[in-house]
């Protein structure tokens, strides 16, 4: 039996191994050239012990399909970030990398960055995720929102340095919302995703352009061939729809 296009991660070993084909042996052992894996429980995530070039590696590596990795839900993201923060867990980091890095790259490419720049920004964001995991507070923002804020700040900083500016000193102060506005929790990003999906095409377009285009709204108006007032009122409407859908009142 052959399993095509799977990737195995070996902690402390060779990193990700992608093989065009893995051969399933007896007793749930699968192998490819140079690596042998004990397949485990589920289709998407298997624990195994691994022999690689004669070495026996630690248990608990991952086996995930390359083409269709199961997206991590918000609760899993929070749990994995907690493991990265508290135990410097590289396996948890690997799962977060699998989930976020390709989305970060796509996000920056949509915003007009060249593929190499988007790739670099995605990698730098993941490195910062590893370093800053301890400051992630699930009571303040969902994991995806936190990752978005990291990558946004990184992009702004890089763009300013590109224009000859020095790095902006990091604020010392804590800008956390006050207790009464503190209603963010891990599910919020998912609810927001649902809310975005209910927007009309035109409304979603203006919101996306606000995030993905460098241009102020006047230029968005030109790009969409709409009067500026129409763009602004569409943004207002779209945001109030989102608020309705979220049941929040910011």
């Amino acid at each position: 039996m052959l399993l095509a296009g799977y990737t195995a991660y070996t902690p402390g070993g060779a990193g990700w191994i992608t093989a065009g084909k893995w051969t399933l042996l007896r007793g749930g052992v699968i192998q490819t050239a140079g690596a042998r894996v004990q397949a485990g429980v589920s289709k998407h995530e298997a624990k195994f012990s691994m022999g690689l070039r004669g070495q026996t590696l630690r248990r608990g590596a991952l086996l995930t399909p390359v083409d269709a990795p199961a997206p991590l839900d918000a609760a899993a993201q929070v749990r994995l970030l907690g493991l990265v923060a508290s135990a410097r867990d590289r396996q948890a980091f690997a799962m977060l990398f699998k989930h976020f890095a390709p989305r970060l790259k796509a996000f920056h490419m949509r915003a007009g960055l060249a593929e190499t720049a988007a790739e670099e920004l995605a990698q730098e964001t993941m490195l910062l995720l590893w370093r800053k995991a301890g400051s992630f507070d699930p009571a303040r923002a969902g994991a995806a929102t936190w990752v978005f804020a990291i990558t946004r700040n990184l992009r702004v900083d890089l763009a300013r340095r590109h224009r000859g500016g020095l790095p902006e000193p990091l604020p010392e102060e804590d800008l956390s919302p006050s207790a009464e506005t503190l209603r963010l929790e891990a599910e919020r990003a998912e609810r927001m995703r649902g809310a975005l999906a209910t927007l009309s095409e035109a409304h979603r377009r203006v919101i996306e352009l606000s995030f993905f285009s460098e241009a102020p709204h006047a230029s968005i108006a030109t790009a969409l061939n709409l009067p500026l007032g129409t763009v602004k009122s569409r943004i207002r409407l779209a945001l109030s729809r989102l608020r309705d859908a979220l049941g929040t009142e910011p």
Partner: protein
Amino acid sequence: MSIQHHLSDDTLLRHAAGRLNAGLALVTAAHLHGCAHCRGRLAAFEAVGGALLEMEAPAAMAPSAFSNVLARLEERPAPAPILRAPRRAALNLPPEMTLPPVLAGCDIGRWLWLGRGVRYSRVRLPWAPDANVMLLRVAASRAVVSHAHAAQELTQILHGGYSDSTGQYGPGDIAEHDETVLHQPRADEEGCICLAALEGGLRLDGWMGRVQRRLGL
């Protein structure tokens, strides 16, 4: 005093997206520092960013991407560059007034004459030398010459207050004006000190405008 004038959805959304220029972002941050209401709204708009990231169809990373990052996990972060101390002119601010912490890294020039009872001081951002930011100080009950704007202007009231055709503004309030507003702010009895950023240049009406253009300001 409670805040009456908040950031617009439009500006806050662009700030959440990281799409405001450095000057407007600085004044926005100055307002957010004092306004829990707008910080809560910002958190919601950032969640829009998080949702857009989650909805993105994954793009294939370079084959070496994960091992690159893995190899760098134990790397020490590059030390923060040593920034020179910001240059500060003596501003003689009212004793009870403090500048917002977001100005900590900025150079602030001396007060310069802009009109009768109106002075300004250039604020320079080392991370964005081309940003158009200033402190404005208007003497008690004085009016700023009537003006319109080439693009967006954000003004955060730091001390005192002013009134114009769009309303009354006090400490902690933010005023947003764009090219559609022609206004003549008049300071309250205490005078007014505010932090302003412009997206484009400022267009003055009347004789001040002619002087401004001659001086190439």
